[in-house]
Each structure stands twice: as C-alpha cells, then as structure tokens.
C-alpha cells in the first residue's frame, strides 16, 4: 500500500516540477505504479533504506538511489540493486504466503502513539490537546 502511495505522490510531484526517485522493496507494486524513477531493493518490507544497525548498507542503498536520480534519462525504469537480505530465502516464502491472519492494526481514528511517554510528550508540546487524547 505504501508503495502505491509513493508512486502516486511521485507522479504528482514530478508533474508539478519536482524530480523524484522512489526507493522501495515491493517490485510488483512499483511496476504497477510506474513511478518516474525507481530503485528496488530486494529486502523484506520495512527495510527500503537498509538493514538495521548496518550503516554501510543504508549508506550504499541511499547513495545508489541518488545516483539513479542523477543519471536516469527515461521515465519509468526501475533499477534493481544487487543487495541480498540473507543467504537464506525463507523470508520470501513468508512474505509471499497467500494464507494467514490479518496483519493490520484496527482502523482506529485516534493517534496511535508508539508509547504512553510519546503521548505525554505530544501533550506537553501542545501538539496534542487533552480533549483529543484517547
């Protein structure tokens, strides 16, 4: 869903004068969305800009994406990076399974803070009014 959103946003920005490059990890959704410039990294969703606590991996991916921003000359091409998540491909079977439970959170219309302390910080800053606080 995020990849769809990013394609729609990229197309809108580009049509209004801002060059973009999309970085994502769901190739089929990037292909369907036809972003102006896109870079695909074959990692599990949630890691489009690299592996956790691997600064070199993150830097390499971001550098490559910006390289595509600079060098792309035709709209719609998707550049795949050679990065591998793991030697073992088990994560792909899990990500591509067609059976399983609903992994989404409830469609709740109140702010879903990562922690209670975050809610306190938003109240303290004035960003969240007490009346809104769930």
């Amino acid at each position: 869903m995020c990849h769809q959103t990013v394609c729609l946003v990229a197309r809108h920005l580009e049509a209004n004068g801002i060059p973009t490059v999309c970085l994502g990890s769901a190739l089929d959704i990037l292909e369907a969305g036809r972003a102006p410039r896109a870079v695909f990294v074959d990692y599990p969703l949630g890691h489009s800009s690299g592996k956790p606590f691997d600064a070199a991996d993150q830097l390499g991916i971001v550098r490559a994406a910006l390289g595509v921003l600079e060098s792309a000359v035709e709209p719609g091409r998707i550049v795949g990076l050679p990065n591998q998540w793991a030697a073992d491909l088990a994560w792909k079977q899990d990500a591509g399974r067609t059976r399983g439970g609903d992994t989404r959170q409830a469609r709740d219309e109140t702010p879903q803070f990562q922690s209670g302390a975050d809610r306190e910080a938003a109240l303290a800053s004035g960003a969240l009014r007490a009346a809104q606080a769930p």
Partner: protein
Amino acid sequence: MTVEYMRAITERYRSLGYAPYRWFRAEDAPPWQPFSRPLSQARLGLLSTSGAYALGQVAYHYKDDTSIRGIASDTPDAQLRFSHITENYLVDARRDPGCILPLAALRQLAGEGVIGKLADKVFSCMGGVYSQRRVREEVAPALLAAFRAERVDAALLVAM
C-alpha cells in the same frame, strides 16, 4: 524471484472474506521532470511513508490518515517514532530508524558534499491509505506544498 505482494495480499485477504483490493495500475507513462542540477549543488527533500513522527508530535491514526509530518532533519534517531497500520513492518525501524527513514545516511552524504544540502525539514506520511482518491487529492498536494516550502530541487521518496 521477487515476492508477488499484490497477488499474495489479495489472496490472503480474499481467504479472510474481504473483497479484492483494486491496486493502482498506472495506464499512462510517468510524468517526467529532468533533474538538471548537479546533486552536489542541490537541496534534497525526503519523504518516508512509514508513519514517522518526532517525539513531541502527534502520532498517525490508522483509518486512512492523510496528514503529513514535517520532521527536522537534524532530529536524533532516539527521538524518532513510528505509527503505521501495518506495525508488523516497523519492528526494525523502531530499533533503527535508518531502515526506512534514512536521515543519518543523508546527513553523512551532505557532510561529504555528495548532496548540496539536506532540506531543513523532511516529511512523513502514513502510506497505508486505502483510498487512492484521498492520496491524490489530499496527501500528494500537501506534500507538494510542503516540498515547495522547503524549496527542494529534488526528493527521495522511501516506501515502506
């Protein structure tokens, strides 16, 4: 072999009794704005669709939240938070935001002179908005205005 997310997600939710989601399939060629300025002289913007927010800001909600957040690009990792309807993809980002909001990498590239300047504010949205109409009519125009206010020459858009 790459993961077929559209097929897998459609099948998985069909088996749970949901009507198939109609994914966006662009029928026309992408618009194109040449990037003519050298990156080393450009002001770069960043969007992450991960539902990122900074400590002190309001978290996103999970029912087609079309709002955006501006986050100071010098925000330390320890003050970055995430709220996104698919929280299962946030496990690593909540430990290391660089997985999906590459501020540290961009600051380093700006320090090296690869990027002219990173915009003062970067942006997030909660990319799990089901309504494509609302993405087109609400999220995309808000981000265009936000990037224009930051006077960016180009933008990196990171999808979760």
